[in-house]
């Protein structure tokens, strides 16, 4: 029998480490932590740096192994922007990811609220139904979903990309945790004030779980932006989405590394921008979600 995945305790806790306790540690202990983290940080960030460093090198310098480019040019970006409809791909990808994020928040807030607020006969069954989707790999559902999309006449449309991503178990469960932690007395008080359940949801619950809503929105948006598998299946010939467009650019350009790195760098830019603006929230959202 399949059982719900219980998050280990503390997984939802803020990502700060415990303060040192007891005696003051010798000075070199702190240094060790810095060294370890610095090495891990550099190893993580270097390929990203190398991508952007290569993208600004003139083509004769591409094989140069110096860490800092000797001379800088934007030729590669000009080439990429001239050969790909970048503006429309950005708009299309943004609309798709925003629609997925909005849909995910809507469906998961409603579901989490119902599960946390009321008791009803099929509750356990529905919980199980939601949790178990976590075990179903996309590869096991792709063929029937592809056929359904094609029967609906939606192949090569953004709607086809959005529809299957509108509900995720992770979003429902993440919000369920937060709504369950919400004091019940406030729901009851709102009922006594004559508020309808929906009114309570909008005016009492939503303002109080904003960080969780933000986490779900960020996760869904970044997940949809970076989603590779499903869009490349239903949008084989289209230039509507950045992932699909860049992918065909990668195969067509062969070994023009400067241009490839420029195109890849551009595809990552919006998510990086979001990350630098909302770093804490983004990291928090991912850690809370488990993975995916």
């Amino acid at each position, binding site marked *: *029998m*399949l059982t719900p995945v219980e*998050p*280990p*305790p*503390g*997984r*939802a*806790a803020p990502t700060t*480490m*415990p*303060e040192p*306790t007891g005696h003051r540690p010798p000075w070199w202990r702190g240094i060790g932590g*810095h060294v370890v*983290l610095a090495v*891990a940080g550099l190893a*993580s*960030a270097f*390929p990203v740096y*190398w*991508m952007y460093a290569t993208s600004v090198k003139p083509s004769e310098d591409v094989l140069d*192994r110096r860490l800092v480019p000797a001379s800088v040019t934007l030729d590669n970006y000009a080439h990429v922007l001239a050969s790909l409809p970048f503006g429309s791909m950005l708009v299309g990808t943004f609309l798709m990811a925003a629609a997925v994020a909005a849909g995910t928040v809507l*469906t*998961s807030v*409603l*579901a989490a609220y*119902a599960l946390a607020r*009321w*008791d*009803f006969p*099929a509750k356990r069954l529905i919980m199980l139904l*939601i949790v178990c*989707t976590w*075990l*179903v*790999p*996309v*590869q096991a*559902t*792709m*063929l*029937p*979903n592809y056929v359904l999309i094609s029967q609906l006449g939606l192949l090569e449309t953004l709607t086809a990309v959005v529809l*299957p991503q509108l509900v995720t178990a992770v979003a429902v469960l993440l919000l369920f945790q937060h709504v369950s932690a919400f004091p*019940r007395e406030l729901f*009851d008080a709102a009922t006594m004030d004559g508020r309808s*359940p929906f009114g309570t949801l909008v005016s009492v619950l939503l303002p109080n779980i904003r960080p969780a809503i933000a986490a779900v929105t960020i996760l869904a948006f*970044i997940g949809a*932006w*970076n989603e*590779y598998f499903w869009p490349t299946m239903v949008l084989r010939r289209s230039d509507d989405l950045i*992932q699909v467009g*860049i992918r065909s650019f*990668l195969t067509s350009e062969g070994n023009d*590394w400067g241009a490839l790195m420029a195109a*890849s760098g551009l*595809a*990552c830019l919006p998510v*990086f921008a979001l990350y630098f603006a909302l770093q804490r929230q983004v990291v928090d959202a*991912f850690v809370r979600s488990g993975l995916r």
Partner: protein
Amino acid sequence: MLVDAAPLPVAGPVPTPAAAPAAARGWGWVRPYLYLLPAVAGLVVWVYRPLVQTVEWSFYDWNLLPTTPATWVGWQNYAEVMALPEMHQAVVNTGWYVLGLLPFAVAVPMAIALLSRRVGGRARTVYQALVFLPMLVTPVATAAVWRWMLTQDGLVNQVLGVVGADAGNWFRNVDTALVAIILITGWQITGFAVLVFAAGLAGIDGEYVQAAALDGASRRRILGTITLPLLSPTVLFMTLMTVLLSAQWSFALIDLLTQGGPSGTTMNVYYLLYKFGFTNFDVGFASAASVVFFAAFGVLAAGLLALLRRFSFYDN
């Protein structure tokens, strides 16, 4: 009229209230289902309906064309799945993916999280930002930049050349392709795992450590008898994730970098069934393979969850 306040119900993980007044209004019982409808409908249409469909198709021979009829073949697809040599190779490779990714998902991040407990403030935020960065790089860009770094005359080979080693093109070489895909997937998930372990450590009550330190326990002893046992749920959780999801984490990279080659050395189970479904259009075979893997991973997950319950030391 004033009524003595009843004792407030203790807020537990699953609240159990207020069904009575709703039911009394006649149609009130429908309400929770209405709120759940969009989410449940979505999951039924996009997860459970296709799952059932996959099971049905696994007994047919069909090539995905609406014009050709599907023919019933019974268990034949399953027999083929079990007999195919490529399938055996893919299953073995999937095992290698899991084993290869465990260090990146469990050992290394745990060590990093433990060693860096005392780093705080602004430095910590910067490190965190860097370590997490790979999670956000789109698969297409990840594949591009690593193909560039690992190509014949790329950066990695240039550096290796200094010590006299030559790996050639990592993705075309039978001995290195799988290693390369595992390294890249590992690069993407390590940062995330570090943060999960950091959160696990943060969730451990400092009082235990303090009490042990007051009793004169050494650092090593505190680590071995308090910190690590309390961290075991996180370890098991990340192990579970790695076992279940390795084949999915590496999927996009396989598709973008090697398509399962050279000679099947990077093929994993999901990529193989994707190939059968969408390159060979052998729907029955792909469906039968899906059912087999879904069942196998389900059994594995149930086993690991049982372990998780049995061997976890929960705080409180």
